[in-house]
């Protein structure tokens, strides 16, 4: 014993399942065997024979019943026996003679059926046939108890000696009752019942077969039909043999066909598939020729009965295959034409494979060359870089003896401005062919120059300082003119006769004010006919009061509330007119004195 701990396992199916599958396979093979070839003949013979035997037995049974005056009860008796047969699995060849004997003895259908049941119980209990049990019961019914005693049912000797069938039957029934039913539930009896059902089916099939075959074959009797069917079976067996021989003869071709097919579907290269397709076409064509030459010709010789169907099926399949092969051939030809530009020789798969290998080798070689080229270029670049670095170093040391550079270096060491320093450095860089430094210094110098230039321009563009008193002359003059005019106006006595506004106008104005204010108030969320209208009416009323007040008091400034008291004594409208005319004349004359005159 060893201890095993499974880490990873796979379910591969139970042994019992495998056994069941094997059994199913065997059963399938048996059924197949029963239905094809010799099995067909055997089954047909068996079914027809069973039908014939049963027909004969039933005919004899009917005759027997008629002989004893129970011809009318034939169908009822058969129905009873059929039910017993299916219930207890007893075959007709036992049950019918037993029933027949009991009915002959008792001359009573009820007694015969009852005793048949007892006979079945005895047979089941003692393991004897129903016929034997029925025979013993029949003899006992007639007073001969020897046989029933020899069955060793355990009937008392006194009962047997009394020869009283009622007593004997009572004792026998007490001993054996239920035995048949109990036995019917056993496995073997169930099998027997199945066999009964199978036989019944076989008989039915036989009856149907006989009817159908007699119709087809124009047979006049069963014997004639049987002969024809046996001949059919033998013929079918011969044809099956022919097909087997055909396969055997062409097995090499079939095998190669299968191999090529497998290769075509497993290889992933399209090119190989197309080439394999051509090989398939070639092989199938050979196979087709072989089929046509040998097998098909022989299949034509089949006998018309039954075998013709098989022949037609074979031909249909072959026809489809031929069509498929032709279509395949066309496709393969087209594919080959398309491929001709890709491969030198597409005649077989080997050439294609070699071509593919050559292409791969060439590709590898090209890749190798490209790699080598890249390495060489890289090497050359590195050498050039090194040479440039060396040249720069040499130039640097040569620069020590360059007078221009010496002067520049000397200038740089002196006191120079930043801008000059930049210029010197740039000049030095240019002399030394230092591009990066020259670019850097040049940029810095340009920025510096730009800065300087912009500053000068900005200074030049500064606007002149603005005169804060510029434009004041006119304003002051205007102001002074207004002050003078006011002064003059103030010195003129004026009588105010304001014209009162019409009531209708004022009313319209204040209504409008009230309406506008109502709208404004409503817009602020007030109720239209409540707060908003009331507030607007109050405002309009206040406005009206205010207007009236300021209209009555024109010397009060309505904005500031300042009171202007202007006293004009004796002023009349004529005076006002005179004053206005004087002012106009003075202005027209342009006399300064008139302007500054307190009177005018």
């Amino acid at each position, binding site marked *: *014993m*060893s201890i*095993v701990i*499974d880490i990873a*396992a796979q379910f*591969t199916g*139970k*042994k019992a399942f495998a056994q069941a599958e094997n059994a199913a396979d065997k059963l399938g093979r048996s059924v197949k065997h029963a239905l094809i070839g010799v099995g067909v003949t055997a089954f047909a013979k068996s079914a027809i024979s069973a039908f014939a035997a049963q027909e004969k037995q039933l005919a004899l049974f009917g005759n027997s019943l008629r002989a004893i005056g129970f011809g009318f009860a034939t169908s009822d008796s058969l129905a009873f026996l059929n039910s017993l047969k299916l219930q207890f699995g007893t075959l007709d060849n036992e049950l019918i003679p037993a029933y027949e004997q009991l009915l002959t003895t008792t001359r009573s259908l009820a007694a015969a059926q009852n005793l048949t049941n007892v006979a079945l119980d005895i047979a089941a209990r003692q393991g004897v046939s129903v016929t034997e049990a029925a025979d013993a019961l029949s003899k006992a019914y007639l007073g001969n108890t020897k046989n029933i005693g020899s069955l060793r049912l355990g009937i008392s000797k006194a009962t047997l000696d009394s020869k009283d069938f009622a007593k004997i039957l009572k004792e026998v029934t007490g001993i054996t009752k239920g035995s048949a039913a109990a036995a019917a539930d056993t496995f073997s009896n169930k099998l027997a019942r199945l066999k009964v059902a199978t036989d019944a089916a076989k008989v039915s099939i036989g009856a149907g077969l006989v009817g159908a075959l007699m119709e087809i074959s124009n047979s006049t009797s069963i014997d004639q039909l049987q002969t024809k069917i046996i001949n059919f079976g033998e013929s079918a067996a011969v044809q099956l043999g022919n097909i087997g021989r055909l396969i055997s003869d062409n097995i090499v071709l079939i095998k190669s066909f299968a191999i090529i097919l497998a290769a075509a579907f497993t290889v992933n290269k399209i090119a190989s598939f197309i080439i394999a397709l051509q090989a398939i076409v070639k092989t199938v064509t050979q196979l087709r020729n072989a089929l046509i030459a040998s097998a098909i010709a022989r299949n034509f010789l089949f006998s018309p009965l039954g075998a013709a169907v098989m022949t037609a099926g074979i031909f249909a399949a072959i026809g489809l295959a031929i069509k498929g092969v032709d279509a395949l051939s066309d496709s393969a030809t087209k594919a080959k034409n398309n491929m001709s530009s890709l491969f030198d020789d597409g005649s077989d798969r080997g050439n294609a494979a070699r071509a593919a290998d050559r292409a791969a080798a060439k590709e590898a070689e090209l890749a190798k060359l490209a790699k080598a080229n890249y390495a060489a270029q890289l090497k050359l670049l590195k050498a050039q870089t090194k040479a440039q670095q060396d040249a720069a170093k040499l130039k640097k040391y040569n620069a020590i003896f360059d007078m221009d550079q010496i002067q520049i270096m000397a200038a740089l060491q002196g006191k120079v401005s930043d801008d000059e320093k930049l210029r010197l450095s740039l000049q030095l860089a240019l002399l030394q062919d230092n591009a990066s430094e020259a670019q850097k210094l040049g940029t810095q110098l340009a920025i510096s120059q730009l800065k300087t230039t912009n500053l000068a321009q900005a200074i030049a563009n500064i606007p002149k300082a603005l005169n804060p008193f510029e434009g004041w002359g006119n304003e002051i003059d205007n102001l002074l003119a207004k002050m003078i005019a006011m002064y003059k106006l103030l010195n003129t006595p004026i009588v105010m006769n304001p014209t009162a506004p019409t009531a209708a106008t004022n009313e319209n104005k204040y209504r409008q004010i009230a309406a506008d204010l109502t709208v404004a108030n409503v817009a602020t969320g007030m109720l239209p006919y409540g707060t908003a209208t009331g507030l607007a009416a109050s405002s309009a009323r206040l406005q009206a009061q205010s207007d009236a007040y300021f209209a009555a008091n024109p010397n009060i400034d309505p904005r500031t509330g300042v009171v202007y008291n202007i006293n004009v004594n004796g002023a009349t409208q004529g005076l006002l007119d005179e004053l206005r005319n004087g002012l106009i004349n003075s202005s027209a004359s342009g006399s300064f004195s008139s302007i500054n005159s307190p009177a005018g």
Partner: protein
Amino acid sequence: MPTEVKGLIELKKALKDYAPNLAAQLDDQMGLALGGIVKKSQSYVPNESPLTNWSYRKRSEKNAEGQRKFPLYNSARVVKGIQYSSTPRKTNRRGFKAVYYIINKSAEGAIYETAGRKNPNGQPWVGAKGDPNDHGVSHSNNPNAGAQFIQAFGQIYQGNLESSTKRGRYMKGRLIFRAWAEDGGKANAAALTAIYNVNELFKKKQYFRKVTL
């Protein structure tokens, strides 16, 4: 239940046929994953016999009928018998075929591993008078022989794994089951990860083959 890996047998066959390197890699990784359990299990094997006189017998190794007697303890043999294997076993009665497994081969190792599972205090004692062919009872002169035998082995540990055929007390032991329980499933996870990774690699390899052909 052990972990059921559908298609594992097919994968192994495919690896063997088409990717031997990957097959070797899988074996190496499984060895690494399960080797720890094996080493740990071996470390729990007592150097000396847990019972005095279990390792020594004066008379023949076979009885009068020529049958093997009760196996003697040999620690080296027990250690050697604890192995990891990747050779698929026969399908068990539930239809599972173990592909990767750890096995305790030696008889004495199996005894040390499992003694006391069914009867923690030993088998019922009947003595020498009982039926000699009845192996479900103790025939020893000492009524406490079974209990003493089991007590000498020490504690039996519940392994945190299940078999396809057995479970519960049948998953107890002192060597492999103990090591497995203490490992906490890490080895199992590593083994399954190795299978998964190799499968993925194999699929990629197939893919590249398709493309490059």
